């Protein structure tokens, strides 16, 4: 019987290698010995977390993050049939994520979405240049626990405050957490506009989302 830690490490390392075939092979091997929940949490997700760290350290790059996410999704799919009832749809929380209206910066926000998804959140990425009301409507539609708002310019930063104001107007502020990010956003700005948190980068966004929603 193979060692549990060795099997999980093999899955995690396969994700870090960003190769889908390696991930599928490692998951096939691990599933004969380990429960699927453990493979997902301690193998696939652990590997994806490491991909996020390596990305921020300049050792892995955007295409690698996307390939790793794709490989991880394939690995999860392979395990889905073996998951106990109720586990298949179990998510850490529902997050609506987008870049505010007037701002076409997309990549940083997409990385945050990818890492949140890989960490086990159900993410609805609205893309860039998103009208303020669309954040609210989508949050209502999917019963979101958190809205993530990105702005990459000092001129569009105000949009983050407008989303929070509209949440208040709609009487939804108490039920939904708000995370802000983007180059000109800061902790002081988050406090000033009444956001629940500010995240400096994608890994921090995942850690703070867990703090707020779990």
């Amino acid at each position, binding site marked *: 019987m193979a060692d549990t830690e060795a099997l999980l490490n093999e899955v995690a390392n396969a994700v870090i290698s960003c190769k889908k075939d390696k991930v599928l092979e490692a998951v096939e091997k691990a599933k004969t010995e380990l429960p699927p929940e453990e493979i997902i949490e301690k193998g696939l997700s652990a590997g994806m977390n490491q991909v996020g760290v390596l990305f921020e350290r*300049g050792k892995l790059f955007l295409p690698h993050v996307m390939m790793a996410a794709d490989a991880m999704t394939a690995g999860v799919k392979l395990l889905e049939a073996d998951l106990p009832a109720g586990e298949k749809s179990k998510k850490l929380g529902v997050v609506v994520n987008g870049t505010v209206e007037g701002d076409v910066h997309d990549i940083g926000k*997409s990385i945050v979405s990818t890492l949140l998804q890989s960490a086990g959140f159900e993410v609805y990425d609205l893309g860039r240049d998103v009208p303020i009301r669309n954040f609210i409507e989508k949050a209502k539609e999917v019963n979101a626990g958190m809205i993530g708002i990105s702005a990459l310019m000092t001129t569009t930063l105000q949009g983050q405050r407008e989303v929070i104001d509209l949440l208040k107007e709609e009487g939804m502020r108490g039920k939904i957490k708000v995370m802000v990010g983007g180059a000109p956003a800061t902790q002081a700005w988050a406090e000033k506009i009444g956001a629940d948190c500010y995240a400096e980068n994608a890994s921090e966004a995942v850690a703070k989302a867990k703090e707020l929603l779990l």
Partner: protein
Amino acid sequence: MTTEYVLRMGDGKRIYLTKEKILSEIEDGSANAADLGEIPDLSADEIDKLAEILMMPGKSVSVEQGMEVPVTHDIGTIRLDGDQGNSGVGIPSSRLVGCMTHERAFGADTMELGHIDYSFKPVKPVVSNECQAMEVCQQNMIIPLFYGAMPNMGLYYTPDGPFENPGDLMKLFKIDKARGSMEHAAEHLTRDMVWVMQKLFASGADGVNFDTTAAAGDADMYGTLRAVEILRTQFPDMYIEVGMAGEMVLGMHGELEYDEVRLAGLWPHEQALLVAKAGANVFGPVCNTNTSKTSAWNLARAVTFIRAAVEASPIPCHVNMGMGVGGIPMLETPPIDAVTRASKAMVEIAGVDGI
């Protein structure tokens, strides 16, 4: 009661720290840079010197006599006439007045002319106006006057340009197509920057400043280095400055190489070598400010990175100092206490050749 000194957080908020806390923040900040860049930490003497600068009682500080360095400006005259939240103070003035004010009132050692959009691509249709403005400014000024703009390769992707947006393609896991799009955009970027600068050099520009290089990642840097190489061949005596957008080259493509060196993930001390190799005269390294950390942490980190770049670089390094870079807090108008302390540290500890 222990003496506390006024410092700032990276977002500009005032904080009060003891000497012990300042020293520990400096050590942590320097260690962070050393770990990421695989470069040496600050020495004990340098840590003491940095703490001394941070604890100086004056609101503003300056370099010691004899250690003055050239100070130049980017963003053209937008700092003065910009009135749309773009770092300007909204003083109505022509670009000639703006350039001459920098020369004669602000003591700038060099200056640059820039367009309101401050990117090479939108300059193409108005290049004749830019040439005319350059000629007029040159006739009225003594200090070297460059033309400055951002490579800003994002303007070549949809919705602003002809090539499919790699961000959209990546989300669909079309990695090869995304990379192809970046490579095409880089070719066009090189072509446009060379074309614009051929016109501006013919109109008397003393040099060019490629500002915020690699803002769109490694392909943006590739396109810029190629443009530098071509311009250096065509204009052997022109002054070429390459300033960076961030401390690390973002790997949007991940596999592009220049001079057989992968561009993605390069830190300032590694970028300097390639910028020099392409033919630039001056390198403008950047270190980003973390808004959740103290100015002691940020400045120590920035000085550690920039000192390594200065040591590695075969050409002069003029460090980027301003909103959210160089250990300066992320504020639209950065506070003078932080700006002058960071500048003094960059000159006296990192040994930069200019700012």
